[in-house]
């Protein structure tokens, strides 16, 4: 059984249909990268998966439980799905430590002591133990994004969704975030990543999913996608973003 199964997701904003029936699966421990031109619904797809934006049609299962079911325990299910935002969205009134431990405390009912210990460990994992008392506004973008990854991982989710995690960062800060993500992927975390970082895709992706105009037009192993894409359009796009974003690995 797949860890994540997405079937026939449709979503429209007003007149415009952003997602026109997207289906795919993600096995435990896999990392899949979603690429495609902007405005093709990649971010919307991620939000449809954890129901931050409920889809109009289509179903999503996490580990056999249907998230899209009318009686699904949505908060319990969301707690099992980490989400890393493009703009970090760290809680502005909490320190780095506060951000990482609030989920375990409020959602899992963990004691403050245990949550603090866990949070310090997670901050250590992303190399920010010494920034535990800093507020988000006192951190660089790269540091904020690492804290937000720690915040997601501290919940011990079954999978983590990444929505263009490096797109809001200065080029010199991208590397530190990708490094954390690569080590998570290699550590067996199940990840679904919307990104233009082809270096990351080559390094850890089990599969690349190419989306355009609200549908998946092609998917396959990175090697095959780069060397022998089935569609001309996929090849053109891959060449263009590799040229634009380089091979940061």
């Amino acid at each position, binding site marked *: 059984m797949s860890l994540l199964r997405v079937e026939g997701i449709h979503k429209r904003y007003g007149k415009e249909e952003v997602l026109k029936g997207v289906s795919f699966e993600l096995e435990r421990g896999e990392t899949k990268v979603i690429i495609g031109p902007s405005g093709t619904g990649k971010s919307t797809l991620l939000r449809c998966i*954890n129901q*931050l934006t409920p889809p109009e049609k289509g179903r999503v299962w996490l580990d056999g439980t249907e998230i899209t079911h009318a009686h699904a325990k949505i*908060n*319990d*299910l*969301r*707690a*099992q*799905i*980490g*989400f890393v*935002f*493009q*703009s*970090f*969205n*760290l*809680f*502005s*009134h909490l320190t780095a430590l506060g951000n990482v431990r*609030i*989920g375990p405390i*409020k*959602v899992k009912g963990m004691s403050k002591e245990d949550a603090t210990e866990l949070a310090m460990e997670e901050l250590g994992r992303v190399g920010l133990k010494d920034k535990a008392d800093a*507020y988000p*506004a*006192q951190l660089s973008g790269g540091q904020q994004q690492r804290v*937000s990854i720690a*915040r*997601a991982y501290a*919940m011990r989710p079954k999978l983590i969704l990444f929505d263009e995690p490096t797109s809001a960062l200065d080029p010199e800060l991208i590397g530190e975030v990708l490094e954390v993500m690569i080590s998570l992927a290699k550590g067996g975390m199940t990840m679904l990543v919307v990104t233009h970082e082809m270096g990351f895709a080559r390094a850890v992706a089990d599969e690349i999913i190419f989306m355009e105009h609200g549908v998946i037009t092609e998917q396959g192993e990175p090697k095959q996608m780069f060397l022998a894409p089935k569609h001309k359009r996929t090849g053109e796009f891959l060449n263009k973003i590799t040229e634009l974003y380089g091979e940061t690995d």
Partner: protein
Amino acid sequence: MLLHGTLINIELLLALLIVGLLVGTLIALLQVYGGRFLGTLASGYAWIFRSIPALVLLFLFYFGPSQFGVNVAPFIAATIALGLRSSAYQSQIFRGALQAIPHGQMMAARSLGMTRVQAIVSIIIPQALRLSIAGWSNEFSSVVKDTTLAYVVGLNEVLRKVRIITDRHYDLAMLAYLTVALIFLGLTYAGNWGLGWLETRIRIPGLQIGGEL
């Protein structure tokens, strides 16, 4: 005598601010998160209590119940009338602050598995309260002075005491009213200083409102 009167103003001020804060926060939360029906009710409430003159409210809450045989003490009537009026203004300050918190904060909280209520209580309100202090400073300066209106329902506050003095010693009128003016200058100054101190005290280093809207 004036000092005793001033103390009553301060008591009334604290009481009405507490009523205003509690009711105002509730109204603001309903306006922002209450959905269409409750939101409209809350907006209607805010509109009504901001539209009626303070004196009319005082008379309504003081003389109104006595028509039905219920006697309300001046202090209670003044606290309710001015407190509800202040709650309408405070709700608008707090509503603005709630709406200024970027939507990304709510999304991040929900993505961790928090319920909507948990997200509002632990993430949104603490940030919105900090943003509200500047507006409250203004509201504070305004309600401090409103407490003198309570003399019309017979509350023994400072202005009424002055009236008692000047009724007997007309020649002291100028001096007495100047003293009252000074007392309120002092009160307003102290209050704003206190709120300024609080604002610095709970300021989050480098906080700007930002992120996903």
